[in-house]
């Protein structure tokens, strides 16, 4: 159990996959940022562990890939497209809606 000031947070998919990534990276998502806001006193904020009940492991992996993609290309001028497999794009669209990214 990490405390709220930890540098890393854990994202858990509905089928039990865990992804550990830097807090700043995960906070690209508005939903996760609000979950982890220390002022909110949510249990996620206290434990640093977000269980995303609506996302499967496959989708969450792609979402995490996007977080790092976003982090990497944040200040770049010409951003290449991230590769999204066509079978995942609809689920990712829903996930993006949910995660507010």
């Amino acid at each position, binding site marked *: 159990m990490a405390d709220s000031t930890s540098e890393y947070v854990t994202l858990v998919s509905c089928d039990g996959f865990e992804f550990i990534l830097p807090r700043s990276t995960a906070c690209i998502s508005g939903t996760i940022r609000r979950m982890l806001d220390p002022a909110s006193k949510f249990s996620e904020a206290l434990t640093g562990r977000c269980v995303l009940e609506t996302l499967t492991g496959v989708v969450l992996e792609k979402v995490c890939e996007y977080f790092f993609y976003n982090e990497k290309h944040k200040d770049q*001028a*010409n951003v290449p497209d991230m590769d999204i497999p066509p079978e995942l794009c*609809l689920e990712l669209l829903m996930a993006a809606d949910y995660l507010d*990214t």
Partner: protein
Amino acid sequence: MDSEVPLPPPRRIRHRSPARAGTSPSSSIASSFRKARRLSRFDDRSSQPSSDPALFSSDDIPASGLENYNAPVTGGAGRKRRYRGTWWGEQVIDPKRKRADFKEKRQVDSGVWMGSDESTAESLLPSEDASAWGEDLLKTVLDPKATGKYPQGLALPKATAAPVLPLPIWKGLHESEQHKFARAVVNDCLEKGEDSIDLGNFDLREIPPGLLQPLQHLTKLPSVKEAPLSENAYSSLQPFLRVYLSGNSLTTLNNELFELGDLKVLSVRNNKLSEIPYTIQKLAALEVLNVSVNLLTHLPWELLRLLQHGELKHLTAFPNPFPSIEEGEITKWHRQPRKSQENGKPETSLEDQLRFDEYEGSPPKNAWATIHVATSPITRRDMEGNPIDDGSASVVTPVALPPSSSTPSAPSLRELALRAVCKLPGLEQVTDDELDDFPSLVAPLMYQARKIRAAGGQRCSVCQHEYVVPRTSWLEWWDCTPHESGMKRPRTSGEKLRPLPFQRHGCSWACVPRLQNI
């Protein structure tokens, strides 16, 4: 036939003597004859392929390998398997199976319908006459309300008539009179090779699908004249395509219109258009465009490209409810009027900005060109494309803005997923009902993706990336006075400029005009 047959040496087979071929005493002459026919592939005079047939036929039986090819088979290992047909498409003949009777085979439907064949005619005709079924299907597809008219079991009055009727494709559709008339006009033009299509004052509310598509293949007919031929009897057969849609009630222009790459003249005067789609950039050959008397508040920025680099020489934009530049909010003026520089005044009045440079003698180059007069403030849009007010954004939705950087240039995950959606095959076939099944937040994005896919994709005007949801938009005020007069005269000295608003989009918050000193 079941008794032992030693592997016969090829020479012997060639003799084809009935007495030797069949060793079984019970074998009749007929059966041995049949057998001899089966073996006729070994015959030199056979009309079958001339390639070697011998070894191939029994390779899969171990006892019949090459080493004991001539030796008699001792065990009950079996007879040489016999094949029928050519060596590449051979079939094993089952010796026990009798040749199928011709009459048994005859039951297969030959696919030929003959008038005298009563059984076929009876089984087909009563309910599901081919042409009636086709018509029925067409109605179902094109007009869902009319499906109840022909119940499946009901025999149609015409059903017993000749089954092959020409399918009336557009007959029976509930198409409005205007559409029918418009189609007739287009067909008439195609027939006569007439390249001026006048669909004016038809009271069209929309351009019916499939109306303009055939015009892509319009060919002019050579004019036949009596001798003597004058010089101007020879004219180009290249159509000078002109489409007049003026005086209708169109609210949108569909993509079919913009597929006409050879279109030279387009008039949508006096309609109810509130927007000219950016797909107008596909009309690279366009020379004259009339968009006057509509409900336009801005023009697409892509149209400016046609004015600058394309063939567009004559743009008629007024009257339209464009905002006037005096009232519009301006972030940056792009012109430095010479007069104000001479006076040394940093502040220039609006009148100075909107006055063309004074010159003497021949008009300078920029008297013909388009002039960028001003740029409006940039409207930033959120990830769903809704404009957000910059001033109150930090108050109302603090979390909507990313914390660290103010201008994120990386596309959002929504945008990335939508770009992938746009590349999905079959997106055009998705119906509105299916899209409505999506969650309410996603459905509008899907509509937009489908629309952009239908238009052939759109590119960011700043970074040239393909995108779906515009994140920034702004107006650029350009003066196109020479183009409005058909490039007949340049701007006169000190002429008042009358800039037009062109709306431009960017794909991310970083895709904004590079303004040095805002």
